[in-house]
């Protein structure tokens, strides 16, 4: 498997706070890789840095063999790298359809309709509500819209930040099923989750992030049965 994303010795600061202290990891083509860890461990910071929203102090981020550092944040998505951000951050006052169109902002106009149809296939609920203002959707629907919007850029690597946050258990299952089906359809996924059990059950490999450092890594099913991981993240 070819390495798709390679993060090497990444250091990120918020002012004088050293948030990411030398994080290195890789994502291979076709995988679901998850970063798990407690609140404040630096999971979202890592994803935001890869997406270009934050600038690292030092370190290297390579996507498909070329560096994404120095690429302006609004051009990262063009490279085939999309982030579905924490808290969904859909455009509340735009309609469902307009949100999806924004997701395809960098793509040629004649390809947008086809991608929209694909997203509607994956999320039939979005098709029913396409004229509705996004702010009126339920939490689960908003998450689906956020994922659909990220897919509209036709990413080869999709980064998902806490997709299950604040959702009812039945919706959490549904969201993870969708993540697996997006992966089967050919999208590589880098998943950040606090719901470590669910994340490890869909992922092929995982990294454990603690206060800005990677403390463990390995195959997801091995970590799922690891005593330390069980104790710290899976509730014993």
């Amino acid at each position: 498997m070819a390495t798709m994303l390679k993060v090497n010795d990444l250091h990120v600061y918020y002012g004088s706070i050293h948030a990411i202290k030398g994080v290195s990891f890789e994502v291979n083509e076709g995988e679901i890789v998850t970063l798990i860890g407690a609140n404040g461990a630096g999971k979202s910071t890592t994803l935001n840095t890869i997406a270009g929203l934050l600038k690292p102090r030092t370190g290297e981020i390579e996507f498909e063999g070329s560096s994404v550092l120095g690429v302006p944040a609004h051009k990262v998505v063009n490279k085939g790298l999309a982030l579905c951000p924490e808290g969904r951050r859909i455009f509340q006052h735009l309609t469902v359809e307009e949100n999806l169109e924004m997701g395809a902002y960098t793509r040629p106009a004649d390809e947008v309709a086809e991608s929209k149809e694909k997203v509607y296939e994956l999320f039939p609920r979005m098709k029913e509500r396409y004229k509705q203002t996004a702010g009126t959707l339920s939490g689960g629907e908003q998450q689906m819209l956020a994922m659909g919007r990220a897919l509209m850029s036709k990413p080869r690597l999709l980064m998902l930040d806490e997709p299950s946050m604040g959702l009812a258990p039945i919706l959490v299952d549904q969201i993870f099923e969708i993540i697996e089906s997006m992966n089967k359809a050919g999208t590589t996924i880098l998943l950040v989750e606090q719901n470590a059990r669910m994340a490890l059950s869909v992922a092929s490999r995982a990294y454990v992030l603690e206060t800005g450092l990677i403390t463990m890594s390995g195959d997801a099913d091995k970590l799922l049965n690891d005593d330390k991981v069980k104790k710290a993240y899976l509730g014993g």
Partner: protein
Amino acid sequence: MLDYLISGISLGSVYAIIALGYTMVYGIAKMLNFAHGDVIMVGGYVSFCSMSYLGWGPLPAILFSILVCTLLGITIERMAYKPLRSATSLAVLITAIGVSYLLQNLALIIWSSSPKVYPDLFGGVEPVMIGETRLSFATIVTILANIIIMVGLTLFTNYTKIGKAMRAVSEDKGAATLMGINVNKTISVTFAIGSGLAAIAGVLLLASYPTLQPTTGSMPGIKAFTAAVFGGIGSIPGAMLGGILLGVIEIFAKAYISTQLSDAIVFGVLIIVLIVKPTGLLGKKVSEKV
């Protein structure tokens, strides 16, 4: 009575067009561009000079002043506001006031303080009579221009790619960036549109009130800002409604109460509206993000 109403709507239309510039810039860049009123004045002088000194006809003069103001708006944004993108809003506000004084003083140096009489744009066009009411051609053009601009902007923000991107940026710059939208470019476009509209407003204002001096833009600028807040800052229909209501209130206050007190009454109404409905007439409710 009807006369007053019509001249109120006409004056209000000018306020509304200016208010659009305030409200669009506020919606997207979350800043109050207090130099906006002075862009009107620059537009006035540019069209005045093209007509009086270069002998151009009104249409090319107006188009030229729209062009100059659009470029001026983009330049102001690039040089004064863009470096302050992550500064406090107070720093940006003070800078905007500084830019306002800079433009007024540059105008003072270039064109001196003595008022110029703006040429009669629609000279020779007969006013239209509706019963006893006389509708001057300037009034008709002003009201029509307002309607066209309103419809045009609504179509633009709802149906064009860049217009939708502007709405996305106004909601969440970070998320818009993730979509691949160039936030800086979007802000530039907003300033360009707002400043181009200011040029149109300047010409329309001077067509009805033909005294041009370096402070010509400041009072209408503040009134239009009031109109934008009155209607709900950030809202395009709000700017329209606020502008027209403000113009009508001002003319009626002048006609029936007192010319001296008319401005006090206008601002008094604003204060009452803000006490009763702090988001303005059509303002969006600001919901706290959880």
